[in-house]
């Protein structure tokens, strides 16, 4: 086919696999038919049979491989370059993990295999539960949630079940104005009303505002500590006392856990429920938008309500080792949050990571993440940068920090978006931009522990060069990027007239 929309002068490199399809080509060869060739009409009634075949591509295997390899080359990726993307913890993805995840005993194991014949998988899950519980300082772990946002939902659903079990009905959930967008979205999906809590002049929770809003109608406060400004909230004990004082639960968004592993534990801070992003702190590759996993850890009082089934360890009384099983008989559980037991392949990778580093290694990872962040913060506080990109809250940060692009906008006439786009020409991924919302023209920078000092030095030089260039000619940044497979795209047009699939043939 030759779609009318395609311009051969510029669009040759973006032909979709459907546009490469030629009738009669194929890759698949069906296995031999070793049973009688009964006419399909005799096996399926006409009303059930497909009338018009799905218009999948017709293409040979070599061309499929070239097509997707070609597409891959239009992606920036963590194995190729620096990714200081705040709140996303783009740390190295060890190659060992792909190898162990692909072992047939993991990759080819059916989720409904009898637990007697899946003891290795269940032991791995048990061990991971124990390890995550130790990192969180909360003893009970459910691995089931599929990603961070799913873990948040689990956290609010167990909160609801906990209160209902006590005969209480609560309607509000508090979230700071610096919260990740998933927090308020989760609150709504869990059937609660969002009440925002303000930020004080140090970047922490405004305690007066919290006290005013913490009523006995509040079910939960969702918090991340360090918060999305990269700052550790020094009032955490007071916050926990206020929240617990009105009978609410305290929920920890684990997006920023990479700052505090082995240093401070959410459970010890007073949190009742924590979610982990195994695709952040625990090295599951991001895959261009998943898969991840979002296990939760909870305190004793929340434990009866966590999703089922739960992996349990049963001690042997006959001299054999322990065995592992799936416990479905949990009457107060909120029930299943998804099919089967969670993203097991992700568990394998994160477990391999924890066993590689051990407790000391995890602690050292957090220490180095915080060291790298503060070093980069110091480099970006130098003259020539700080006057255009001042830090939002001038304190020692944890694993990330937030700059404001206000100065660059006012003095150089370039926005944070322009700086980000110009970074693409320098071969680095930009930081998270325009978040958190309370910082004007925000750039949120998280270098992670797996980057070298030289890489951080280079990044600071790139920022400086972009600002110097803009002082000479702001148009360069305003029109960047120039060296990428495409340049700035018409996002408004895409949303106004959505084309979300190949036009039907």
């Amino acid at each position: 086919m030759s779609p009318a929309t395609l311009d051969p002068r510029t669009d040759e490199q973006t032909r979709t696999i459907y546009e490469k399809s030629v009738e009669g080509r194929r890759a698949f060869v069906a296995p031999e038919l070793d049973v009688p060739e009964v006419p399909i009409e005799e096996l399926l009634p006409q009303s059930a049979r497909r009338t018009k075949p799905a218009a999948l591509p017709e293409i040979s295997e070599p061309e499929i491989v070239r097509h997707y390899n070609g597409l891959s080359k239009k992606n920036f990726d963590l194995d190729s370059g620096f990714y200081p993307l705040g709140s996303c913890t783009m740390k190295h993805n060890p190659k060992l993990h792909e190898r162990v995840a692909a072992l047939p005993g993991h990759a080819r194991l059916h989720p409904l295999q009898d637990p007697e014949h899946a003891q290795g998988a269940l032991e791995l899950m048990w061990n991971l539960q124990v390890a995550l519980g130790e990192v969180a300082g909360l003893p009970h772990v459910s691995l089931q949630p599929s990603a961070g946002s799913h873990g948040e939902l689990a956290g609010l659903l167990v909160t609801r079940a906990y209160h209902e079990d006590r005969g209480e009905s609560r309607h509000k959930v508090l979230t700071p104005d610096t919260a990740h967008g998933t927090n308020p979205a989760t609150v709504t999906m869990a059937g609660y009303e969002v009440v925002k809590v303000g930020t004080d002049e140090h970047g922490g929770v405004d305690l007066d505002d919290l006290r005013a809003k913490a009523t006995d109608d509040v079910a939960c406060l969702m918090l991340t500590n360090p918060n999305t400004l990269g700052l550790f909230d020094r009032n955490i004990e007071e916050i926990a006392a206020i929240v617990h004082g009105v009978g609410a639960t305290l929920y920890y968004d684990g997006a920023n856990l990479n700052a505090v592993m082995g240093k401070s534990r959410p459970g010890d801070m007073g949190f009742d429920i924590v979610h982990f992003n195994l695709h952040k702190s625990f090295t599951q590759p991001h895959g261009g938008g998943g898969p991840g996993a979002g296990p939760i850890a909870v305190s004793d009082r929340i434990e009866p309500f966590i999703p089922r089934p739960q992996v349990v360890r049963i001690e042997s009384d006959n001299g054999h080792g322990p065995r592992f099983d799936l416990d479905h008989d949990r009457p107060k559980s909120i029930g299943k949050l998804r099919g089967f037991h969670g993203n097991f392949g992700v568990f394998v990778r994160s477990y391999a990571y924890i066993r590689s580093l051990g407790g000391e290694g995890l602690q050292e990872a957090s220490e180095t993440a915080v060291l790298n962040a503060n070093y980069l913060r110091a480099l970006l506080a130098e003259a020539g940068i700080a006057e255009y990109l001042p830090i939002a809250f001038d304190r020692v940060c944890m694993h990330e920090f937030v700059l404001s692009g206000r100065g660059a906008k006012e003095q150089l006439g370039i926005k944070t978006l322009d700086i980000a786009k110009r970074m693409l020409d320098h071969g680095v991924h930009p930081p998270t931009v325009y978040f958190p919302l309370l910082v004007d023209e925000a750039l949120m920078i998280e270098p992670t522990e797996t980057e070298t000092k030289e890489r951080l030095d280079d990044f600071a030089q790139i920022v400086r060069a972009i600002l110097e260039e803009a002082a000479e000619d702001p148009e360069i940044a305003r029109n960047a990027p120039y060296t990428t497979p495409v340049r700035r795209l018409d996002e408004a047009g895409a949303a106004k007239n959505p084309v979300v699939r190949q036009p039907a043939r």
Partner: protein
Amino acid sequence: MSRYTSATDADRKAMLDAIGVGSVDDLFAEIPEGVRLGRPLELPAGMAEQDVFEHLSELAARNRHSDVETSFLGAGMYDHYVPSLIDSILGRSEFLTPYTPYQPEISQGGLQVMFEYQTAISELTGLPVSNASVYEGPSAVAAAGYLAKLETKRTRLVVSRGLHPHSRETLVTHAKGYGMTVVEAGLDDRGATDLDALAALADEDTAAVFVQQPNFLGTVEELGTLGEAAKRTGALYIVAADPLPLGILESPGALGADVCVGEGQTLGNRLDFGGPSFGFFAAADKFIRKMPGRIAGETRDVDGRRGFVLTLQTREQHIRREKATHNICTAQALNALAGVIYLSWLGKRGLVELGELMVRRTHYARETLDLEQINPGPIVRELAVRVPDIDGVFERAREAGINPGYRLGRDYPEYEDGLLVAITERRTKADIDRLAAVIGSVREEVPA
């Protein structure tokens, strides 16, 4: 030095000097004394790579996986052949290690993959709009329930008992949050959704009616007829489908579905003990601004070149916050890539050929096993049968290196002696004959 970091003592000193503090501990001074851990984490000490590999290999060796037994287990995840090119392409760093494509200029590969994936899902389901993936099957069902709430403001969801038990339970879990109740329409004596029961339950308060195709027992449902009953009172008609048999089964969209969701594992994804795989979510045009999750769209750059972006983001949590259409953020991009590669590998004709092979082998199994049918109607890959002395069959089969399938009694007390047998293209005539021989040998010993 910790694994995967590079800071030397000299680096550390230079960095601390630049920061203006004396030690790394000073950087943690913000943490109040009372909440510092103050001791090492109680975890096993770190290990060399080869020792971690040995440990994980030892654990893996204690799992009986689908290469070491002849498995007829299905019930939601299936032992289909995953072609080699998928591992090769998914192993590329450029697909494995990027973040979500929020910077489209350097993410055209991933975005075009999403666009191609959405096209494939749209083709299979017969619905014009697909998102770029959700977590997996049962939570996709729950997401569809949430869309029905947003769309209709009604309070009830009706599910067929033929919907996967995990989907039904997951829907109940999520519906408790968004304030809806779930009621169930039973199955008839042919293992299909009871039309009259479903029609009676779908009332003015019903936001959506859920049916699965093929249903959990493997029965091909009469989607058109059920849909008419479902939509009579204005409820949304939501079909949870296995995408692979949709090469030979009429698309849910053509039979009246408003939304089609499902588990994508059958499209080129590993078993992985249940995940990660992907969920898909497709819908009629009018729901495009109420869909959950990411959607890629086609556009042009400033030079007029074709490109792709994440579009309609004002639905999503990072923009719309508490008013978002769903809270989902990270989804299953890499697994969806496996799905679209698989569908391209099968191709337009291969998808049909594979479907026909499965149907023929499944019917061969039905005839050869020669057991009482729980679902005597049309089937494509799975059949439900009553087995005399099912414990004995499992025991004998295990000895023969066969996993005979899924015991329906675990979820359906009414089928206490029921066995759900899945016949993928990996199960040959010889495999089926062996299973039949095992069941036959046990049956001969059961007193009539």
